[in-house]
């Protein structure tokens, strides 16, 4: 997949397993100086935005879920919010809480998957979680059980863990009873303990001393650690509503990637995801997550991407305690959904997928047929920032041999939990030195 002149020194490492989705990394060194770094994404295009045209307004929650098996709820929620917005409907009260509960399940599942099975092995010197389990079975078992609690929420509320069937525009097909949710509460109390221990565990890892100056952006809400809706704010003063997104963010196509690259107009790369949420909404975390963050020595000013693993652990605590709170206060809604009558118009919706903000826009005609659809996933927003981070990392570590450099670059990429399916599984790392 590389096209270098014979004079250049190239190394191809089959790498970057443990990311969601297909890509490769390309590094070019000329005369001892770093010339170019590219994160190449080869995930074959699936054309969701194209075939959504002509579909019914009720279909995007089921259809767009299939963009990503790791974070289908994020797609379902952003799609619902956008279509409801187009139709002039706002969902609040217990139906909103139930959506939040479902989303907590996905945060727990996705973050725990990444943390225990994909990311932690990097810090402990294992190539994967199966090898890790051979030496530390209890640890991996605890992680898998925590992950399972997330999936149990998805199964009870959504019907199944991957591509839940119970989500619809306007709410749900069937809402659970208090009794349905009671066993989850029991499980979540145990999960909360495991999550607190997880924070303490990962906070003790050895972290390289690195940092970055990137602008961080996340959805913000005055009184909650945001999962759905709100305004998109950044550490450098960006503060926009969902319908202003494309006025501020431009998506470019680059030759080396099937994922589009997003930049902030006149500002450049930015980063979405757990670090951004923590930086901007840290004060709104629940008491358990706040305590865990503080014990771990995590500050809102944290900019070391390797320490994102601690932030993810804190967010697992947050999602467990939030899920518990929702279940304890749950009153079954009278109707499983609000009726959503289509009308001609445009609607916008955004939510915080585990990897960061996910934006949807739909244009409907009067009968509710989709005229146009636009989706900006977190990975296309983060890809330029990941390249930026890689560039700085490689620049400072040109003395490493190709194999070591390749490995450390993979870790750098995994810090961002990129979901290349959203925007792969196979990354070739190519280092070209001339």
């Amino acid at each position, binding site marked *: 997949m590389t096209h270098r002149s014979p004079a250049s020194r190239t190394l191809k490492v*089959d790498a970057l*397993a*443990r990311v*969601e*989705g*297909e890509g490769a990394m390309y590094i070019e060194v000329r005369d001892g100086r770093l010339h170019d770094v590219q994160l190449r994404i080869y*995930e*074959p*295009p*699936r*054309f969701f*935005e*194209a*075939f959504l045209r*002509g*579909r*019914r307004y009720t*279909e995007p929650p*089921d*259809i767009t879920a*299939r*963009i*990503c*098996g*790791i974070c*289908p709820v994020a797609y379902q929620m952003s799609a619902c919010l956008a279509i409801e917005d187009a139709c002039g409907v706002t969902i609040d009260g217990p139906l909103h809480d139930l959506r939040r509960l479902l989303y907590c399940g996905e945060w727990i599942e996705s973050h725990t*998957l990444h943390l225990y*099975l994909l990311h932690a*092995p990097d810090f402990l010197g294992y*190539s*994967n*979680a*199966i090898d890790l*389990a051979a030496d530390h*079975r209890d640890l991996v078992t605890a992680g*898998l*059980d925590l*992950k*399972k609690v997330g*999936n149990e929420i998805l199964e009870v509320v959504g*019907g*199944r*863990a*991957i*591509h839940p*069937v*119970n989500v*619809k525009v306007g709410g749900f*097909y*069937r809402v659970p009873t208090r009794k349905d949710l009671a066993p989850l509460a029991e499980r979540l109390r145990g999960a909360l303990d495991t999550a607190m221990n997880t924070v303490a565990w990962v906070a003790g890892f050895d972290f390289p001393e690195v940092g970055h100056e990137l602008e961080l952006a996340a959805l913000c809400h005055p009184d909650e650690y945001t999962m759905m809706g709100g305004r998109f704010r950044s550490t450098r003063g960006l503060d926009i509503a969902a319908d202003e997104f494309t006025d501020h963010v431009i998506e470019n*196509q680059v*030759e080396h990637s*099937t994922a*589009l690259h997003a930049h902030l107009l006149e500002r450049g790369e930015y980063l979405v995801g757990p670090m951004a949420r923590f930086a901007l909404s840290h004060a709104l975390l629940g008491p358990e997550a706040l305590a865990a963050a503080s014990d771990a020595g995590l500050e809102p000013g944290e900019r070391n991407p390797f320490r994102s693993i601690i932030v993810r652990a804190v967010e697992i605590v947050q999602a467990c305690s939030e899920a518990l709170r929702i279940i304890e206060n749950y009153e079954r809604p009278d109707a*499983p959904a609000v009726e959503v009558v289509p009308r001609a118009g445009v609607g916008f919706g955004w939510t915080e997928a585990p990897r960061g903000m996910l934006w949807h826009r739909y244009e409907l005609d009067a009968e509710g*047929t989709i005229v146009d659809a636009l989706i900006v996933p977190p990975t296309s927003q983060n890809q330029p920032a990941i390249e930026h981070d890689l560039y700085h990392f490689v620049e400072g570590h040109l003395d490493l041999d190709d194999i070591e450099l390749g490995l450390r670059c993979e870790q750098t990429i995994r810090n961002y939990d990129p979901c290349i*399916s959203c925007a*792969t*599984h*196979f990354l070739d790392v190519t280092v070209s030195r001339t």
Partner: protein
Amino acid sequence: MTPASTELAQERPRVAVWKFSSCDGCQLTLLDCEDELLTVAERVELAYFLEAGAVGDGGKGLYDLSLVEGSITTPGDLDRIQDVRRRSTRLVTIGACASAGGIQALRNFTEVEQFLGIVYAQPQFISTLEESTAISDHVEVDFELRGCPIDKNQLLEVIAAFTNGRPPAIPGHSVCVECKLRGNVCVTVAQGVPCLGPVTHAGCGALCPTYHRGCYGCFGPSETANVAGVAVELRRHGMDEHEIELAMHTFNTWSPELRDYPPSAPTPTGEQP
């Protein structure tokens, strides 16, 4: 080809997981077997499974069982699937993408250039085939596991069966049968909700009807699906012709039973006058 594992075999059977065009949901199903994953990893060697970090021999070995996720959509995939087949004693497709082309097969009804132009400003950089096709269109497949996504118990059954040289116990009947086995009240009879259950392959345990929703066909057509017959039922319960077409042309649109629906009109997503 001989069955991969016998009781006499010293070596654990080698299993590989491959990805083509997909959402990763079906292979994630293996990682979602939280209670069974470590046991599975002891009984079989997860020799190549990138999502779990098992790089092993880089996909360059020989495998007793290959699980293939995703559909064929790029020129490179055409060669890669042949290579996967050569390396595999048994090859099982997992999910609607691999077994029927997936939702991305909606491109098959239009000119792909048109789709490229909607998503990409510079379509010339993108390498893609005209059609998204099932794995069985390209190589011999030993078994197709259905679902978008697959069911985890069915996945465990398939792994156990193929690594022990026995046929998998996966019933070919419809969701309708599962629904009755589960003791559900029929959503169509009781609430008039249109449902694809009568023509949809079993495997999910009749999930949607359990959630008071009509089946939307994510497991694809059952073995004896009477698609024209169910269309009559759907119409009777309030769906118009356009809605029925959309329902048939979703996650399993390119399956042989559905791709020509409706028999006369060529464009599945065409507007009603």
